[in-house]
């Protein structure tokens, strides 16, 4: 328990302070945030529990991280390390659909919603749930854009295990793996960069693995699996990952992917803030998402 557990009135928040909207508000180019509550699916090392608070936690954390922008009368914030000046884009880059708690087949619900969003030319961003969220998202987007790839930051070769047959890039893989999924991913022309390679060679290990994209390509589906993160740094996940990624690596990888291959869709899975009373996991996930969609959410300002 921490002092932060004390009850304190909080206003209803949306992701990055963007407008709340309904399905009718979906427009081409928008990032469309939606939370998925309910019970998780997929295998988990720790006892299963609901991920209901994942999206709301990420919403709150994203707003906290954007404080410098909100407190700036000009709307411009300056990164003290790099000197980069940027502004949060006005409403029109992102909307928040609220939370969806499907009572039936979660894969189908995710696929239907992501297909509708992608079909409108927008970019779905789902937070909450487990593998079924990723599976549904990939299915919905692939049903709309046939040439899409998958980039995952996770501890497993998730794309292959979910039945995705296209080229996939897995970043941060660690621990024992499903040999069949590993072989399928390589066989499909995918690549795997392990956590160990990232520890040894830094971001260069990932940079070398990122696909070359021509300007008119559809961006990849990005899966941010919280199981990638070492349990020693952040506990808000349903499994124990030892020798996984540090929070800094996770955030940097998301920023790198966002800069080199702006995603057509993304999902955050296996986030369980209730396990992390420090709130560290939701904070780093929010920072990773802001980095992943940096191009859509921020505009750089020339000095």
């Amino acid at each position, binding site marked *: 328990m921490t*002092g*932060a557990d004390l009850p304190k009135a909080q206003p209803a928040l949306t992701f990055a302070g963007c407008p709340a909207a309904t399905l009718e508000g979906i427009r081409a180019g928008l990032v469309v945030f939606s939370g998925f509550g309910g019970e998780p699916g997929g295998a988990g090392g720790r006892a299963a529990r609901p991920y209901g608070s994942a999206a709301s936690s990420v919403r709150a954390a994203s707003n906290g*991280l954007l404080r410098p922008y909100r407190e700036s009368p000009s709307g411009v*914030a300056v990164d003290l390390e790099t000197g980069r000046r940027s502004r949060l884009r006005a409403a029109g880059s992102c909307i928040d659909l609220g939370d969806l708690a499907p009572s039936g087949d979660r894969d189908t619900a995710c696929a239907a919603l992501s297909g509708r969003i992608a079909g409108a030319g927008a970019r779905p961003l789902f937070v909450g749930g487990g593998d079924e969220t990723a599976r549904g998202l990939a299915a919905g987007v692939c049903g709309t854009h046939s040439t899409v790839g998958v980039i995952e930051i996770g501890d497993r070769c998730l794309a292959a295990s979910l039945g995705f047959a296209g080229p996939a890039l897995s970043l941060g893989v660690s621990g024992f793996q499903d040999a069949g999924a590993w072989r399928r991913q390589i066989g499909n022309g995918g690549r795997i960069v392990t956590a160990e390679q990232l520890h040894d060679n830094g971001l260069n290990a990932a940079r070398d693995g990122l696909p070359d994209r021509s300007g008119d390509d559809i961006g990849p589906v990005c899966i941010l699996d919280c199981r990638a993160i070492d349990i020693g740094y952040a506990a808000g996940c349903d499994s124990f990952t030892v020798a996984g990624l540090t929070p*800094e690596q996770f955030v940097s990888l998301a920023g790198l992917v966002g800069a080199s291959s702006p995603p057509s869709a993304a999902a955050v899975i296996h986030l369980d803030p209730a396990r992390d009373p420090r709130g560290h996991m939701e904070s780093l996930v929010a920072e990773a998402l802001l980095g992943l969609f940096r191009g859509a959410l921020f505009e750089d300002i020339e000095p």
Partner: protein
Amino acid sequence: MTVDTGRWPVPAALSVVPTFFNAPVADLEDVGPGDVAVVGIYCDHYGEGEPGARFLPRQFRYACALDGRSPPGGVFDLGDLSVFPLEPERCLEVLSDQARRLARTGAHMLAIGGDYGLTPALLAGLRAARPSGTLGVLRISGSADLAPSGASVLSRGSASTRIRALGGSIRVAFAGLSGSVPEAEAAALADTVFVTARSCLDETLAGIAPLRAWADSCDAIYLSVDADVLSPACARTARARQQGGLSHGDVLRLLDALGPLRPVGAEFTGLVPDLDVAGRGRGAMCLDPVEALLSGMIEGRDPCR
């Protein structure tokens, strides 16, 4: 070992009143020149973030009791300063008065807990008691808090601005800054000595040379360390922060590299501790950095540099 209180067993160390660093309890009249008076501040009500830092003094005392470290000579626990959480003007006035009276004894104040928004009040009192010479305020924190003075007189975001406004002979420098700041704050930093967290992580610490030169140009130093200079993995603080920052060891290394600052006052603010009775959580983890502040103050018992 536990003691049976008749209702439930408690750790033996907690069967007595826990104090900071297990130091003797004292009152204002018990401290004199060269002593270090450790005080708690039960107030984070103006910090513009999650509450909890107000509980650090209590948790820190628990952590000290269970840690069992020996109290250094000349160090006293003066209890918690009086605060008025719901009356900002009165709170400011009373804190300032207490800091002034404490400084007039010749003792050095080490304040634990609370929020940086209260620091201008403490410095106003310190300055009133010791008006001569240049007072350098070294703020080791992830954020500069240089927003324009707002509606609240105890707002954290404008604390450094309000310290600057105390008078021309107070100079503020920063170490450990990270992340983004509003454009106006970046402009306010332009004529300020500061080093970023990245410079503090550099193995050679060559980047902190401007801080050493700045410290040498001051007649006395007030050292203000905030938990938000630590990486989010190391400490929970009131406000959300980006990844990055220092570890506890990095803070110790930085304090060591800055040399004998011999501060006339110091504080540790912004940490939201675990509320476990044993205080073994993040309160205990910060014992060493705070003890480093204490050591620096003991070494610097002559407040004239």
